[in-house]
């Protein structure tokens, strides 16, 4: 089939299509009057909510921990103090990524060239992977914050088996996830399980485009 035949075929199909389209004018009117939100925009409220909750958590946490460091360091339970500090620090980093995402969502302009817009969306996706990686790094500190110095002195080996096993397992899992949550593993079942949900769907979709966009720039 030559070029002309292909184009004629395509054109004839869509000529028929256009004639048969019953374009409801009311549809265009409705959209121009409704306060509608686009699919990408629909991600914003969730991100803003997470950002606000995270900011409160980090704010309150930083304030409490600062008081302990400044006024009660010697009496404080160091396990709790250092675990909580690491947790708050990692959450704060994740929040900055959320801020970056909100800025990027606002900057996405669908009337820009296709490849450029897709690249921006892919960068958005990449940053989402970073949030998840950072948050998973927190796993071990959730298992150590309740330890204390008297446990070190009083517990025997058997008593330590369970908490140490849990902490080691969480540490291994968090390090493994930190290094393995990446684009190359997007088709793995565990990956799709983690990134399954309304918030992730558009980003998962744009992830599939990465290879195509890259080949367009060869």
């Amino acid at each position, binding site marked *: 089939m030559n070029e002309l035949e292909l184009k004629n075929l395509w054109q004839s199909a869509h000529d028929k*299509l*256009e004639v048969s389209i019953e374009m409801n004018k009311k549809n265009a009117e409705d959209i121009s009057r409704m306060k509608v939100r686009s699919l990408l925009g629909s991600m914003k409220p969730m991100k803003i909510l997470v950002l606000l909750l995270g900011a409160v958590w980090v704010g309150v946490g930083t304030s409490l921990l600062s008081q302990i460091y400044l006024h009660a360091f010697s009496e404080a339970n160091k396990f709790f103090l250092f675990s909580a500090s690491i947790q708050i620090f990692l959450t704060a980093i994740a929040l900055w990524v959320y801020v970056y995402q909100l800025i990027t969502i606002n900057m996405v302009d669908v009337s820009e060239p296709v490849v450029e817009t897709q690249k921006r969306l892919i960068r958005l996706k990449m940053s989402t992977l970073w949030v998840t990686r950072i948050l998973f790094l927190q796993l071990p500190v959730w298992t150590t914050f309740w330890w204390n110095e008297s446990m070190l002195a009083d517990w025997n080996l058997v008593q330590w088996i369970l908490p140490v096993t849990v902490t080691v397992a969480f540490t291994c899992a968090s390090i493994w996830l930190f290094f393995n949550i990446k684009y190359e593993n997007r088709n793995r079942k565990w990956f799709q399980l983690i990134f399954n949900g309304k918030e992730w769907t558009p980003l998962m979709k744009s992830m599939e485009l990465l290879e195509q966009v890259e080949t367009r720039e060869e």
Partner: protein
Amino acid sequence: MDKQKQQQFFQQIIEQHKGILFKVASTYCPNDEDRQDLIQEIMIQIWQSIHKYNDEYKMSTWLYRISLNVAISFYRKRSVRTRNQAELTKHMDGIIADQDSEKELHLSLLEQFISELKELDKALIILYLEDKSHDEISAIMGISLSNVGTKIGRIKDKLRTRFSQLKA
């Protein structure tokens, strides 16, 4: 532009260029219900971007960018909005029902072969089949002119191969 003029301009654009929306939507969404969702999403994006339109580009270039960007990235099967949708009815029956003629058969094969292409290749082939110049395709896609020629050449070869495989 005041709100009322913007509304009139929007309705005028949709009326005059609805073919672009439907062609893009029908290429990316074979399923009728999904296609209606996609068309609505494209219209919403056009409405939300209308204040940014400038006549530096042709209206069709601007609309193709929006339609293709939405079709490629934003679309997903489950709509998250409250369904306040007007019915956009498309009657394909007459087009594909009668597959007796060779033309109709070729047409459904072409649609099938295009549906097998990757997202960005679909965009390129739509623009090529719509007889857009390489300059305009380059402006819509944001790739170099030489890349446009190369990529379209490869896609055409793929389609030709698929058709010739059937004849063989």
